[in-house]
């Protein structure tokens, strides 16, 4: 395969379910050997996009090619080049660990003489050595996810699609899962992953932020954080949060405010100048106040800021 050509090219991809537009004219390119992230809340069109790219759903309009193959015209050919892991755990619980691997090795037509070595490797990578005869149903969720991932890549596909691979998995297992993804990227694989965990999005080389079927931003995590914030970020510790948030959202100098953990993140034009003003504003209302300091924005801040702006403009438009 041509290494310069992008792995996944999507142009004006649209998917309608009746009147509902799940994916609205989305365009992007994923390059070889990168982790390409799709970030967005539930219902933003992440899973629909990934399913179209895997040939599981028909697109309504637009064009999508995976590994240079048109998905709409030749979904079967696409399936030879991809590994897919669906959101829901989708291995056979009534089979043993090794039997699941053997089954998918068969489905992907892995050459017979290579099957034992690939299964051994998959078991090693998933951390399931010596547990190959265990019933799959007996594995904890984190192990199941790693096994599912290794099942989906037994045929060594150049592109892997992972649909919310870590939902419902504990933080330690999530970390281990991402180590596994990084090791595969090291083998030259393109990973296309959807998530709604902002911390996971930081692991991606490039990201698309999706909201209600539309792309709201695209770039590396660093680019997104530096280019898509309208101002600087202040972290305000205060109590109670409700009235304070209301106050800040109505204050004209505050561009945007949202609750993060036990504080409020406020977007302002000039953070050092605004900090004392906000302290004053909140004290006047007798709200318990802790630290106020300028911080670097996280992806979550970027996302909240972008989608909030869009929500307002949508309301104005309506």
């Amino acid at each position: 395969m041509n290494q310069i050509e992008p792995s996944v090219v999507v142009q004006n991809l649209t998917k309608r379910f009746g009147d509902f537009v799940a994916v609205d004219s989305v365009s992007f390119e994923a390059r070889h050997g990168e982790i390409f992230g799709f970030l967005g809340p539930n219902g933003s069109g992440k899973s629909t996009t990934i399913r179209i790219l895997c040939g599981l759903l028909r697109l309504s309009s637009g064009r999508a090619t995976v590994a240079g193959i048109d998905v709409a015209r030749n979904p079967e050919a696409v399936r030879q080049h991809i590994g897919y892991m669906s959101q829901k755990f989708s291995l056979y619980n009534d089979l043993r660990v090794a039997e699941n691997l053997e089954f998918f090795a068969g489905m992907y037509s892995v050459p017979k003489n290579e099957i034992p070595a690939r299964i051994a490797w998959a078991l090693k990578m998933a951390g399931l050595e010596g547990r190959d005869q265990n019933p799959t149903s007996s594995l904890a969720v984190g192990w199941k996810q790693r096994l599912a991932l290794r099942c989906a890549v037994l045929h060594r596909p150049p592109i892997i699609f992972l649909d919310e691979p870590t939902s419902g998995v504990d933080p330690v297992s999530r970390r281990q899962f991402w180590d596994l993804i990084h090791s595969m990227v090291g083998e030259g694989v393109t990973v296309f992953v959807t998530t709604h965990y902002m911390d996971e999005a930081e692991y991606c080389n490039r990201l698309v932020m999706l909201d209600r079927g539309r792309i709201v931003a695209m770039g590396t995590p660093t680019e997104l954080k530096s280019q898509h914030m309208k101002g600087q970020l202040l972290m305000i510790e205060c109590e109670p949060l409700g009235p304070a948030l209301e106050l800040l959202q109505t204050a004209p100098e505050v561009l945007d405010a949202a609750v993060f953990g036990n504080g409020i993140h406020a977007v302002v034009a000039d953070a050092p100048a605004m900090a004392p003003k906000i302290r004053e504003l909140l004290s006047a209302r007798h709200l318990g106040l802790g630290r106020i300091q300028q911080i670097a924005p996280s992806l979550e801040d970027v996302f909240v800021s972008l989608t909030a702006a869009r929500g307002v403009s949508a309301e104005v438009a309506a």
Partner: protein
Amino acid sequence: MSWTRIIAMTRKEVLQIVRDPRSLLIILVIPLVQLFIFGYAVNLDVKHVPLCIYDRDGTQTSQDFLKHFQATDYFNIVRVSDSYSDIVRNIDHAVCSVAVVVPPQFAENLQSSGHASLQAILDASDSNSASIGIGYAQAIVQSYSSEIQIAWQQERGLGAGVPSVTFEPRTWFNEDLESMANLVPGVVALVMAVVGAFLTSLTIAREWERGTMEQLISTPVGKLEIQIGKLFPYFVIGIADTAICAGTAVWWFGVPFRGSWIVLFGCSMLFLLVVLSLGYYISVTARSQLGACQMALLATFLPTFLLSGFIFPIDQMPIVVQWITAILPARYYVSILRNVFLKGTEVRLLAGDIFVLAAIAVALVALATRSFQKRLG
């Protein structure tokens, strides 16, 4: 088409069948239970009708006559009564369903006028058994009366060869009118319909329900490979169940087998294709295991039981129902099996039935293949 993928699919299905006690139960227990229910419990033969006798004559002749009831399998003399009230009591308590009363002067009347009457009392609350019972009783009286007629003629030196026209029905193929012999073909069809369609109705629906289908259709496996790989184990199970049913029928119940085993298994394979494809189609359409298995039972068990001619003869059905049976594969299969078991009919005489069955099989295989799409929603 890749054999590796088909074999991998078959292997997975076999593992799932073996690990699911319910399917094992259906595969092994249902055929035998059905066969034994129809073999023993549902006995459509009327034999050993419980009989009460009341001899009011008490002569050598009357005793001689009543011995004829003893000599046959059709009646069981359960009680010798000594009064009408005793007969009433016995019928009321269902001790007997038929009572035969020899009136006084039976021997005397016979001797003097050559004519005597008998009384039979029947419990007709089960009218079918009662009419069969009276039929047997009449036949016994008939044979007794011709016996004494001949004896009477011989005594008077009129010779033995007095021509008297008698009707002697001769039943072919199932000489003893044993209902078991007639039922077995239907039981085989019933077992295969239930086992075949019921089990396969779960295979696709289960994958949708558990979410494994989404993973499966993201692989390069072809839809024909899925269909063949999934149905093959059930095909083998169906053949094994046919062998179990036919073997038990022939060697345990003594049902005659006069045709060719090749025709039996050949046609069974055709019928299996029909029921497996039907089950597969239902499974693809229903997408839920519960809905699919209910639909499969409705589509196979009931028509096979009621409309295939298995229990109720097709030519006795209302004409519209007869038309409906024309598209029922079980009807042709039951008809072929009856011919193979009881008549040993040559293949060329069965060609019509086999052809229709094959045509239905092809149509259903095509329908099943078309119905499945490797797509969500």
